[in-house]
C-alpha cells in the first residue's frame, strides 16, 4: 500500500494557484482527506469529489482525485447520481455550511431519506467566506456581520439534530484542528455503507473573528462511552450547545439507494458499460400488437 499522501497532490498548473487564505481551515481538511485516502488504500482514480460553490467547494482543484465543481447547493444530487451510475467509485460530496445547509438544504434532507452510499463533508466555519462575511445558517445568535448589523436572531441550524431526527445513516462532527481524530472519523464515514454526514468545524481566518482555532478547542469536547446506535442518546448529544460534542453521534445501518435499485439487483456492472436491452423493447412492442 502506498502510504504517501503526495499521490493526492495534483500537478496540474491550475491546481497550484490555491485560493484559500493563509491559515484557512480548508488546508487542514485537505490534509485530513489525503491522509484518510492513503490509509484506506484508495487510488486517485477511484475517488470522486463533487463540490458545490464556495471556498470549501474548491477542493476538487487542490487534490488529485476526480472532481466536479458544480453549482451552489447541488453537490448532493449530483454525487448521488455518480454513485448510482458507478457504485465502484468512492464518492464524496463536499461544500460549506451555506452550500449544504442553506441553498442545498432540501437536497440534504432527501438524501438522508434516499440513503445513497456517499460521504457528505460539510466545511462548517459558521460564515459565508467567499462572499465576504455574511451570516450562514450556522452562525451563532447575536453575531454581527455586514448584512446582519443588528446581530443574528435566527435560530442556528443544527445539522446533527436534523440528521438524527431524520434517522440518517451516519452522523458525525469533528473539528479539523484535531488531525488524527478527524482522519479516523472521515475514514469511518467513507467506509460506512450508506449516507455519511460529517460536519467539520473549521475557522474562517478572514471573516469569522469569533469562532477561531482557540474558540473551537475551548468550546468542543470528545464524546466518550457514547453508543452511536442509541438514537435517543444521540439526539440528546445533538442538542447540546456549549461545549459542542465531537465524534460519531449516530449510526443506523439500512439499505442504500443503489442496492435497492432494480439496476443492481442482479447485475453489478456500472451503467456506462451497459447496452440497451433491445429484445426487451421488442417484447413490449409485441405485446402492443397483441393486447
Amino acid at each position, binding site marked *: 500500500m502506498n502510504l504517501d499522501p503526495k499521490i493526492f497532490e495534483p500537478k496540474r498548473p491550475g491546481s497550484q494557484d490555491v485560493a484559500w487564505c493563509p491559515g484557512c481551515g480548508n488546508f487542514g481538511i485537505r490534509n485530513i482527506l489525503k491522509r484518510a485516502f492513503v490509509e484506506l488504500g484508495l487510488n486517485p482514480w477511484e475517488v470522486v469529489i463533487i463540490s458545490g460553490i464556495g471556498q470549501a467547494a474548491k477542493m476538487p482543484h487542490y487534490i488529485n482525485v476526480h*472532481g466536479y465543481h458544480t453549482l451552489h447547493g447541488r453537490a448532493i444530487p449530483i454525487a448521488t447520481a455518480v454513485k448510482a451510475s458507478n457504485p465502484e467509485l468512492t464518492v464524496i460530496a463536499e461544500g460549506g455550511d451555506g452550500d449544504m445547509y442553506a441553498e442545498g438544504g432540501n437536497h440534504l434532507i*432527501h438524501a438522508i431519506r434516499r440513503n445513497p452510499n456517499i460521504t457528505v463533508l460539510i466545511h462548517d466555519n459558521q460564515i459565508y467566506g467567499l462572499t465576504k462575511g455574511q451570516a450562514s445558517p450556522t452562525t451563532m445568535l447575536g453575531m454581527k456581520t455586514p448584512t446582519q448589523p443588528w446581530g443574528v436572531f435566527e435560530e442556528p441550524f443544527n445539522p446533527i439534530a436534523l440528521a438524527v431526527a431524520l434517522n440518517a445513516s451516519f452522523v458525525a462532527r469533528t473539528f479539523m484542528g484535531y488531525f488524527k481524530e478527524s482522519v479516523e472519523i472521515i475514514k469511518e464515514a467513507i467506509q460506512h455503507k450508506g449516507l455519511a454526514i460529517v460536519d467539520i468545524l473549521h475557522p474562517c481566518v478572514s471573516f469569522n473573528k469569533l469562532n477561531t482555532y482557540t474558540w473551537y478547542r475551548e468550546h468542543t469536547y470528545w464524546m466518550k462511552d457514547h453508543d452511536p446506535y442509541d438514537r435517543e442518546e444521540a439526539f440528546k448529544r445533538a442538542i447540546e450547545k456549549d461545549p459542542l460534542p465531537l465524534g460519531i453521534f449516530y449510526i443506523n445501518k439500512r439499505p442504500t439507494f443503489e442496492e435497492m435499485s*432494480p439496476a443492481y439487483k442482479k447485475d453489478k456492472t456500472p451503467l*456506462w458499460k451497459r*447496452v440497451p436491452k*433491445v429484445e426487451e423493447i421488442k417484447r413490449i412492442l409485441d405485446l402492443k400488437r397483441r393486447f
Partner: protein
Amino acid sequence: MPKFIKDVSIVLGGAAGQGIQTVEETLTRVLKLSGYNVYANKEYMSRVRGGVNTTEIRVSSEKVRAFVRRIDILIPFKRGVLPWVEKRISKNTVVLGEKENVEEEFLENVTFIEVPLSKISKEVGSSLYLNTVAAGVIAGLFHADIKVLEEYLRKRFGGKGEEIVEKNIEAAIRGYTLGRKLCEEKKVEIEVSKDESVKDDILLSGTEAIALGALAGGMNFLSFYPMSPSTGVAVFLAQHAEDFEIIVEQVEDEISAINMALGAWFAGARAMVTTSGGGFALMTEAISLAGMAENPVVVHLAQRPGPATGLPTRTMQGDLNLALHAGHGEFPRIILAPGTIEEAFYLTAEAFNLADKYQVPVIIMTDEYLVDTYYNIPDIEFDRIKVEKYVVEAEEDYKRYKLTEDGISPRAIPGYGKGIVVANGNEHDEYGDITEDEELSRIMQEKRAIRKLETIKKSAKLPKLIGDENARYLVIGWGSTFHVIREALEQLNIDDIAFLHFSWVYPLREDIREMFDGRVIIDIESNVTGQFAQLLKRELGVEVDYKILKYDGRPFSVEEICNALKGVLK
C-alpha cells in the same frame, strides 16, 4: 339515416373517474385487432373526480393520425357532455345513450338513438358494467371480431376473478348484439373497410414512444418530479425498471432531477429527465451548468399552456423560447420536436447519441397532444437505431476541456482509465481547473458558443418537405402538428402548396434558407406569438407572411387548419 364512410369519429364523454378510459382502451384494441386503423386522443380536466373528460377515437379505412373537431358518434355518460362539446356536434352527430344524459335542448339538434346502457348493465348484475356495454355497442356497430372482444376482456379482467370476467363478457355481448341490431335496422350505417395487416400493427402512444425510444437509445437513468403531462414517461419507465435494470427515481424537486441527470452522465450513464414547462423553468440553472461543464443531458419537455400553472392538462407549443434561452450565459443546445409517434421513438433514441457526441443539453419537445395521442403503426425499424458511445479512456495528463478544431473535447469519465477527470461549472483551463485568465476565458467562450455550435449546425437534420418543392405556398410547422397539417393539406388537395415540417428545431442549418426563397410562407403553431417564426427570423432572416396560431389549450383540428388555409389562399 346517418351514414359514415371510411372514417368515423367517436367521442366518449363523462366525468373523471367514470371509466371512459376503460372503454377507450377496450375499443381501440379490439377494433385494431379486428383490422381497423385507429387513432385516439383525450382531453381531460385537472381534477380527480367529476368535470367532463372526453376521448376521441377515429376508426378508419386508412391510417388517420390527426385530431378532428367533428363528432360522428357521441356517447355521453353523464349530463353536461353535450354542452361541453356543443361546437363539435351537428345534426349529423349520432348520440347513443340514455335520455337522462342528454339535455333536452340538444335532442332536436342531433340524431339521438336511445340505447339503455344502464338498464342492460344492471340486468347483467351491476352498473359497473356500463362501460363494457358501451364498448360492446360500438364494437357491434363496426362488426368487430366478437372473439377478439371476448379474449380481450378475459385478459383485461383476468386478475379479478372468473365471475367478473364472465359478467364483462356478457355485458359486452349484449352491447355488441345491440350495436349489430342498430346496423341491421339501418339506424346507423357504417362503411369502413378492414385491413388484415393492421391486426399486426403496434398500438403506441406518444408517451410510450418517448419512453421506449429512450431505452433504445441506451437510457439507464431517469430522475424526475411528477408534472402533467410529462409524468406518463416516468410511470412507464418505473413500471419497466426491473425488466430493463435501470434507475428510475422520483426526487424532491426538478432541481434535483436535472442535477442527478448531470451526475449520471458525468459518471458515464445515459440519463434523462422528463418534465413540463414549470419544472423545466426550475431546471434552467443546471442547463447552464451543463453548458459550462459540457455535461451531456437529455430533457423531455412535454409542453402545456403556461405561464405558471396555466392549464395543467391541456396542450400548447408555448415553451420554445424557454427551451431556446434556458440558462444564463452563451452555450449551444439541441432542440428536437418529434412530429409523429414513430419520430418520437427514433428521435428520442438519437437524442442520447447527440448528447454524448456534442456534450450539450438535448431537449426533446413534445406536448400534451402528442404524449396523449396514440395510433397503430406498422413496425419499429431497429436498424435505424445505433447506440453510438463517445466516451474515451482517461489517460495520464487527461484534459477534460482540451482545445480542438471542432470545439469538441474527448470526454472521459471517472472509473475508466487511470487519468483524472475534472469537470467544472466555473470558467476553466483545459484541465478543468478554475481560471480567470483573459485570453483563456475568451477562447473557452468561443469554444462552446461558436465552434461547438458550428459543428452541431453542420450535422443538423433537414426539415421534411411534403409536396412540390417549387410550390408557391409553403406551410411551416414544428413538433406535434405534423399529422394534422398533413391531413388538412391532403383534404385541400391544392397543387401549389407544400409543407415543411421541423423536428430538428435548433440549431438550424444555414443552407435551408433557400427553401423559403420566393415563397409565400404560412406559419402554423400552437402559441400566441409565433415563437418558431421568430426563430426563423432570428436565425435565417426568414419572414413569414401569414401566421395561423391557436392557443386555447386545445389541439389544432384538421378542419381548423383547412379553414384557416382557405382563408389565406382565398
